[in-house]
């Protein structure tokens, strides 16, 4: 797995130019004719034409409700949907049977959190493998561990699980540098025999911090040692890194989620991957059509996974679009996508370092970061920074980025974040830095 230093060469100027030509939206202008500088890919990525075409072709030629009907269109739609699942499986280095389509990353994490509380219902684990069944049991006295750098999507569902079951939420802290405080001595206080789940992000959506989740990393090793399930939020890493190592047999990771719309795909589709035994043991989250085996008035039994977790007519067109987006990334090569990100990151950090009125948040070394640079301009609220950038056509994210506790930890109400995609150019980073220079001008600070 990556330690943050890609071996591959970054994308050349020409290669990025070719990539940009595939993204129709990037050609538009904003705010009275200024060329768009889109530095908000951490919120959502723009879409290449192949993704839009794949969705359109599905609707124009193959649209039908998948896994239903005996007609040719139903067969074609089902084939397209299952082929998309196989593509996702390839992207993750896993088996299609372990890929569950969800609405987004948030739904995948809720699916997992609800599996634990639903497992407490009488008979919910009948027939389940005893080892997985035991690991799914969460109640008073048990603990769920998250980190202080989680997106609300990987925090609130676990808070709610604890509320429903009487378990206790604990968390791994974050250092002033925006790194996980994962020194073994500190972790041993948080991850204990009582820990049933360790849920953490691969890459911080605010700071870009790349967490070390190798099998022998302190966090994963500590979780494994006590038999806690390791759940990884890969929403911010999937667009930039090869994450296949996380699903490897001995990775120590039990489940992960990522979302389609940050990974060049459409909105409305996300992915949950989990160990086969876990998927088999987990009770369903949403119930209804498609996910059943036998239905009688008195009660029902469930289809095997992944169908067990896909109630209702699924988002087939979006899954097909996502597969096209993942193929696009794979074709560029994720090692090169990562190298490109590192080049953008280094350039951004250099330009910000030249501006003493900017305080960059998060780890200092470029290789410890992926995808995003958050910063503050002392004395100017991030919303105002974002507004000035927007006036120059530069789109960034401002606010707490759905990571309020992390901002509280860093003693900040909010921050401004520039984030990159495979199509981001060094010139865009220059334009961003130049636009940023208007902030001290407008707000009358010593610039």
């Amino acid at each position, binding site marked *: 797995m990556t330690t943050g230093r890609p071996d591959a060469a970054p994308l050349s100027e020409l290669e990025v130019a070719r990539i940009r030509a595939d993204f129709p939206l990037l050609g538009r202008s904003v705010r009275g004719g200024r060329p768009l500088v889109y530095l908000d890919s951490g919120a959502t990525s723009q879409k290449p034409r192949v993704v839009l075409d794949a969705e359109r072709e599905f609707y124009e030629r193959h649209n039908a409700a998948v896994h239903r009907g005996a007609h040719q269109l139903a067969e074609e739609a089902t084939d397209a949907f299952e082929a998309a699942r196989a593509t996702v499986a390839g992207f993750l280095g896993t088996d299609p049977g372990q890929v569950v389509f969800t609405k987004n990353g948030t739904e995948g994490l809720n699916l997992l959190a609800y599996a634990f509380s639903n497992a407490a219902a009488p008979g919910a684990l009948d027939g389940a493998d005893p080892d997985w069944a035991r690991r799914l049991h969460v109640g008073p006295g048990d603990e769920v561990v998250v980190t202080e750098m989680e997106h609300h999507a990987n925090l609130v569902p676990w808070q709610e699980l604890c509320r429903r079951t009487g378990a206790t939420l604990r968390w791994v802290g974050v250092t002033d540098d925006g790194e996980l405080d994962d020194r073994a001595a500190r972790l041993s206080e948080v991850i204990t025999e009582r820990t049933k789940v360790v849920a953490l992000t691969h890459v911080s959506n605010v700071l870009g911090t790349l967490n070390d989740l190798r099998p022998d990393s302190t966090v994963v090793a500590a979780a494994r040692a006590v038999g806690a399930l390791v759940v990884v939020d890969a929403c911010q890493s999937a667009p930039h890194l090869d994450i296949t190592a996380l699903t490897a047999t001995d990775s120590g990771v039990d489940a992960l989620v990522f979302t389609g719309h940050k990974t060049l795909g459409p909105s409305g589709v996300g992915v949950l991957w989990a160990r086969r035994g876990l998927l088999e043991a987990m009770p369903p989250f949403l119930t209804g059509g498609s996910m059943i085996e036998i239905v009688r008035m008195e009660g029902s039994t469930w289809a095997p996974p992944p169908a067990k977790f896909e109630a209702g007519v699924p988002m087939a067109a979006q899954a097909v679009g996502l597969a096209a987006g993942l193929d696009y990334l794979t074709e560029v090569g994720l090692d090169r996508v990562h190298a490109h990100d590192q080049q953008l990151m280094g350039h951004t950090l250099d330009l910000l370092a030249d501006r003493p009125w900017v305080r960059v948040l998060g780890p200092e070394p470029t290789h410890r970061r992926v995808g995003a640079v958050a910063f503050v301009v002392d004395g100017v609220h*991030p*919303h*105002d920074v974002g*507004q*000035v950038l927007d006036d120059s056509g530069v789109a960034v994210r401002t*606010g707490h980025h759905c990571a309020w506790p992390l*901002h509280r930890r860093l003693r900040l*109400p909010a921050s401004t974040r520039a984030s990159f995609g495979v199509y981001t150019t060094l010139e865009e980073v220059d334009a961003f830095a130049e636009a940023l220079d208007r902030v001290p001008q407008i*707000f*009358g600070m010593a610039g």
Partner: protein
Amino acid sequence: MDLYGELILDHAKRPQHAGLREPFDVEVNHVNPTCGDEISLRVHLDTVDGGAQDGALVLRDVSYDALGCSISVAAASVMAEETLGHPVAETLTTYRHLHAMLTSKGQDPGDPEQIGDAVAFAGVAKYPARVKCALLPWTAYLDALARAGADISAASEHGDRVDP
């Protein structure tokens, strides 16, 4: 850019009547959950005894502690200026005109006769994402009035609901 006029920047840098003061009838705390902006606001109401305004409710004090962007801090400052010492009924009219301007997408330039310095926020109406920044202090203000027992139905166009 037309958003950050001199007046807004001045109010943001030097918010008027800032700081929470005694005495007060009610204190409210409002947040903007999308950005974390916060305001604590206190109102102190009094009934006029005698004269032309006999029996009218008046704002003896409006004090606040605002944490947020320049738009929301400046809005709190202007809100204090436009309410402090004024009859409640008059401030509800001010709010109604301000709200109409802010939600007009730039069509309503605002009437200085009605809303005073708050016309400086006319540019905010062109940025839908920032309208809630400018309204946050006013939303808190209306809430405080209602909790203090004032009738705030005149804050809305139809008088039957308040939807700030």
